[in-house]
């Protein structure tokens, strides 16, 4: 959990600023598949190397199972199978749930924790950047929470809220809301003075200034804060699910490891990683749709 020290709102979007120009189209069309092909080749090489190492029996399969074993564990975790070869007892998924249900449950927790932290973070950011004495009063505590690794206070949360989902949501919320507060304050602080003055001299009152000019001006920074927060929430979810986390992909990754079920552990790790990448891709897409002007002014 060292990722908490990344400054909020500094993530520059480079991809979205490439405007297609008529002359460059051919180049762009040729370049993109090359990049994709490179990624695919690197993935194939990686899997092949992995397979070769395990096929040559260089490593004990307990430490590194073959890609095939991981794939089988992944498939078994998503289907119903006999408990053993020839047995009539059928078991569905692992730990009473399919793997995709574990993933969905983790996503649900992240969704709730994140939704709360977005609402609280953005509102608090607006309040703290408007009311200076409150900022001086509250900001140190937010920075304190931000500096803590979530594993450090999960014990306290369990004492307070038990081992149920309330604790997990709290943990995700506490991990995700500080970067959103900071990004909101940062975004509001960096609104150009002339832009504010332009709205006032066009007749905007205080409320109109905040709603119609300040908010959209700060939106790119807020969205970048949310993007960072999603990353924090995702890295925190495994910690949040260490206790009583089934169903949950983080809990499954942890439990299968303690049960020496290495193929399933690796399958879970891959699912966690891929889900994180997909989530980030979706957020980047949302950012591009909501703030198309970023990088073009």
């Amino acid at each position, binding site marked *: 959990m060292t990722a908490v020290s990344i400054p909020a709102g500094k993530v520059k979007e480079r991809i979205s600023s490439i405007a297609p120009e008529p002359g460059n189209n051919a180049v762009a069309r040729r370049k993109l598949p090359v990049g994709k092909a490179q990624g695919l080749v690197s993935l194939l090489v990686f899997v092949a190397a992995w397979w070769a190492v395990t096929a040559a029996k260089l490593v004990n399969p307990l430490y590194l199972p073959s890609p095939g074993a991981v794939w089988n564990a992944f498939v078994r975790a998503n289907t119903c199978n006999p408990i053993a070869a020839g047995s009539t007892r059928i078991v569905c998924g692992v730990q009473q749930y399919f793997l995709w249900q574990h993933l969905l449950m983790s996503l649900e927790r992240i969704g709730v924790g994140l939704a709360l932290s977005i609402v609280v973070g953005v509102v608090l950011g607006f309040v703290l950047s408007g009311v200076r004495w409150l900022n001086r009063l509250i900001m140190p505590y937010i920075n304190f929470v931000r500096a803590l690794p979530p594993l450090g206070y999960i014990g306290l949360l369990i004492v307070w809220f038990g081992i149920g989902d309330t604790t997990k949501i709290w943990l995700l919320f506490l991990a995700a809301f500080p970067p959103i507060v900071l990004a909101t304050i940062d975004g509001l602080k960096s609104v*150009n003075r*002339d*832009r504010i*003055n*332009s*709205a*006032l*001299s*066009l*007749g*905007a*009152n205080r409320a*109109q200034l905040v709603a*119609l*000019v300040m908010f*959209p001006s700060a*939106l790119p920074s807020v969205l970048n804060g949310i993007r960072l927060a999603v990353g924090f929430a995702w890295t925190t979810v495994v910690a949040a699910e260490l206790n009583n986390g089934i169903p949950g992909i983080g809990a499954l990754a942890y439990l299968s490891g303690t049960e020496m079920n290495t193929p399933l552990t690796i399958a879970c790790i891959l699912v966690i990683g891929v889900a994180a990448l997909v989530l980030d891709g979706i957020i980047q897409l949302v950012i591009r749709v909501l*703030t*198309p*002007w970023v990088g*073009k*002014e």
Partner: protein
Amino acid sequence: MSDSDNIASGSTTGDNTVGAANDVAVDIRHVVKRFHTDRGEDVTALNDINFAIRRHDFITVVGRSGCGKTTLLNMLAGFEKPTEGEILIGGEKIAGPSPKRGVVFQKPQLYPWLNVQRNVEFGMKVQGVDAASRARTAKEYLHIVGLSDAADRKPYELSGGMQQRAQIARVLAADPDLVLMDEPFGALDALTRENLQVELRRIWQEKRKTVFFITHSVDEAIFLGTRVIVLSSHPGTVLMDIPVDIPRDPERPEDIEAVRSTREYRELVTRVDAAIHQ
């Protein structure tokens, strides 16, 4: 501050206060502006500024950079307050920004999340004008500045000159009495700049606005203005306040070449240049 105060104190405001109080749009009296620097020093940006702006004046202010031109404009707009003295509008002290005083910034302050049409409608929208009249007025001003075809585009899809036209349309559509312009054409290429100068002069005639225009170009100041004010630097004081009396062809008053070829124009350029460089 009542009207009688305004008239009574007219004699104390110096030689530039001429005409009846009704004609005076803005009265700048003994204005001083000082700033505190980070090193704790006091810097006087403007010292004892006195002049009045009459209705339908086109005041152009020239001076070197750092002479406090923008500070003066910021005080007229209500963004800043004078350290000493006062600025009266209709006999009242300026309390803060107002849609009665529109500001055209050097860098166009268009909102990138709104298209050009909605940018131009912004002032009317926050002032509660209904959607139909908003759309009509915005169309009219977009037509005036030659941007009818760009109404649906986003500001960042426009060239610098087009962005500045859009900003001018937005300010005019909010219907201000006084238009404050801070080197609006400074960042544009020469050709675009001349086109916009001609258009601005035409719009000023047509809409009978009062304009306060800052520039560092003597040419621009004399071509556009009905009166040129020259500011000195460190501290900024009024060096020269001179009416522009150039014979203009009534058929084509905005013919730049014709204006520039007059003897009066050339003489004025020489005099203003001399004042700036003294």
